[in-house]
């Protein structure tokens, strides 16, 4: 995915950079493909940044700044391509890392300025898509499902993005959005937390998931591959018929 290839290019159309993130490169490749497809249908030329790896969050959140900085620097240099094209990230918590915490991580280093430059360009995918609501509606997205939206903690409480993904879901005909009582409560992923304290982490997921069946939910939608890895993985283990999917995937299916 780091070939720098242009997925869809037309002279004179706006270009966006799609940063897949490490989860997008390893376990959520379809999510990235779906995001690229949706963006292309909306008329954007989509570039994948050459050489981007991970935002450094796993080490940063564990307190290991040295390896976090080394990894984040590779991604920073890959993203800092001299353009001003928006960098879209299909992950709330990676966006939060790049936009808010890189400043701290690169403070007083040679990369401090570049980090600020990138922080200004980076956008969380669903908030970008929310601005394209009328263009999305023009594609007549349609999908029949009872949907619950799960807020990613970093997206909700660090980036303060709450309404935007819901607005995107509202453009899809046939989607019935249900607000769950614990919708804003953490799913228990927490990056390395999920493997440091697996039992607590799974119990936290269950506390959320137990709300789905009584509410008759078909689709659990989020905009963070980390949360989806956690919630989807637990649903799959429990043999639940509910699918946990990324907003980009829902949209791609709805406009297919």
């Amino acid at each position: 995915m780091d070939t720098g290839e242009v997925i869809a290019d037309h002279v004179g159309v706006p270009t966006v950079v799609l940063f897949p993130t490490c989860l997008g490169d390893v376990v959520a490749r379809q999510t990235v493909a779906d995001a690229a497809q949706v963006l292309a249908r909306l008329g954007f030329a989509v570039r994948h940044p050459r050489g981007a790896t991970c935002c450094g969050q796993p080490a940063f959140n564990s307190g290991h700044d040295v390896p976090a900085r080394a990894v984040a620097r590779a991604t920073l240099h890959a993203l800092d391509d001299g353009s001003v094209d928006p960098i879209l990230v299909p992950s709330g918590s990676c966006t939060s890392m790049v936009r808010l915490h890189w400043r701290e991580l690169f403070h007083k280093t040679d990369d401090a300025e570049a980090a600020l430059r990138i922080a200004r360009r980076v956008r969380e995918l669903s908030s970008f898509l929310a601005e394209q609501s009328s263009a999305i509606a023009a594609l007549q997205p349609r999908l029949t499902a009872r949907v619950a939206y799960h807020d990613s903690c970093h997206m909700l409480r660090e980036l303060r993005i709450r309404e935007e993904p819901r607005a995107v879901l509202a453009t899809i005909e046939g989607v019935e959005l249900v607000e769950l009582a614990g919708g804003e409560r953490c799913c228990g992923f927490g990056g390395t937390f999920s493997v440091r304290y697996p039992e607590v982490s799974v119990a936290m997921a269950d506390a959320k998931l137990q709300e789905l069946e009584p509410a008759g939910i078909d689709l659990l939608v989020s905009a963070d591959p980390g949360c989806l890895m956690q919630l989807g993985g637990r649903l799959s283990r429990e043999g639940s018929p509910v699918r946990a999917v990324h907003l980009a995937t829902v949209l791609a299916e709805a406009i297919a």
Partner: protein
Amino acid sequence: MSVQEEVDGTPLPPGWSAPAHQPGAFELPTTTFRERAERTMARPFARTAIAGATDHAAELTWLKFEGVDHDGLRDQAKQIRAHAIANLPDYLEQWIDNAEANGTIVHFAADEVEARRIIAEICVDEQIASVVKSKSMASEEVSLNSALEGAGVDVFETDLGEFVVQAMGDRPGHVIAPILHRTKDEVHALFSEMAGRELPNEAEALTAFARAGLRHAFLTADGGISGGNFLIAETGEVMLVTNEGNGRLTTAAPRVHIALVGIEKVIPRRRDLPVLLPLLTGHGTGQQITTYVTITGGPRRGAEPDGPERTHVVLLDAGRSALLGGEFEEALHCIRCGACQNVCPVYRQVGGHAYGWVYGGPIGAVLTPLFRGQEEGGEVAQATTLCGACDDICPVRIPLHDLLLGLRRQRAEQAQTPRREQLAFAAWGAVWSRPRLYRASTVVGGAALRVLARGDAVSTRLPGLRRWTDGRDLLLRRGRG
């Protein structure tokens, strides 16, 4: 119950109050968060009890501030606390001068050992044979009850929750609601055993049983020991909030009152209370104000008909002054309302004991490494998902998320993290900072996972993956879904 019994109460069975933790009897150094959490999670009903109580408290808190400039109030409170802590030595000196002028005897305890010794000595000097205690987390920090038992003093916890904690030989599981992790049935069984007969399993009857015993203790105790919610510098007073009236009786009925208060509890003026008090009670119990707010200004004076003959206040440092002026100073702004515990999704599953020391939840994950040191207490700072719910509810806007990150960083810098973890992150950094190696690792890793997968799900419980796959599948989102 006869009229006389109603007034005097009935003595509690002898020796029931014995369970008291020895100094250093905390579980912290010997067990991990994971082990302690599992123990609570395995107890029937514990999780339901904790989740139910905390959800309810959090909901009450938000309701309480509907239509109020909550954010403005919190900004003001943050300012007051930040100012008080930034000028702590001055305000403390002012408080001491005024308290002494009121006739209060002021002591200073540098650590838990001194606090235990000072209070035990006061009991000897004042010929105190029994004390009633109102709820105090500071006294938990110093394992005060065991020191008092050691000095031959009978101790009666008088907060209903703490009364249960003491009788069970338990520890408080929450700063405001000590038996939040217990069920009514457990209390019923305990009280019936204490009473030597089957009591009705109703809250009112159970409370009445405790009340009768406590009434007797209040009337016969020589000393009363309390904590303090605030120390008011301009007046030298100690302020306490309670809902059961036990704080007022503890500070006023016995011959001697002893308060053990953390030095960070100082605030400049009485007129800071209209800001801080509603935030403390609103975030603590969802009340506009508690049933009792007690401001004590020292011993009885002149012809005053009641109040203690002597008042001692023991100011507790125990790790606090070391934080002044440093990266973690804001932890001292805490007013111990417990709101961060109520909204914490981790605490909701595991309760307070999992944190291994006195304080649970986000503030516990911050205070434990700070007060006990990284080596002993550092692990619990990892036991959060950094979800930020605590930041959003803290009435004095302590940046708990940042403090937790800072503590994790400090722990890694001091090489207190397990060797395995250090090596893993170093190796990860070496590979993922090089795009070509990163690419190779995702290709190889992805291929390996695809080999292990059935359909799109890896559920094999291989050693390297077990901590994930024991409870969850690892989904490879190759196709839609």
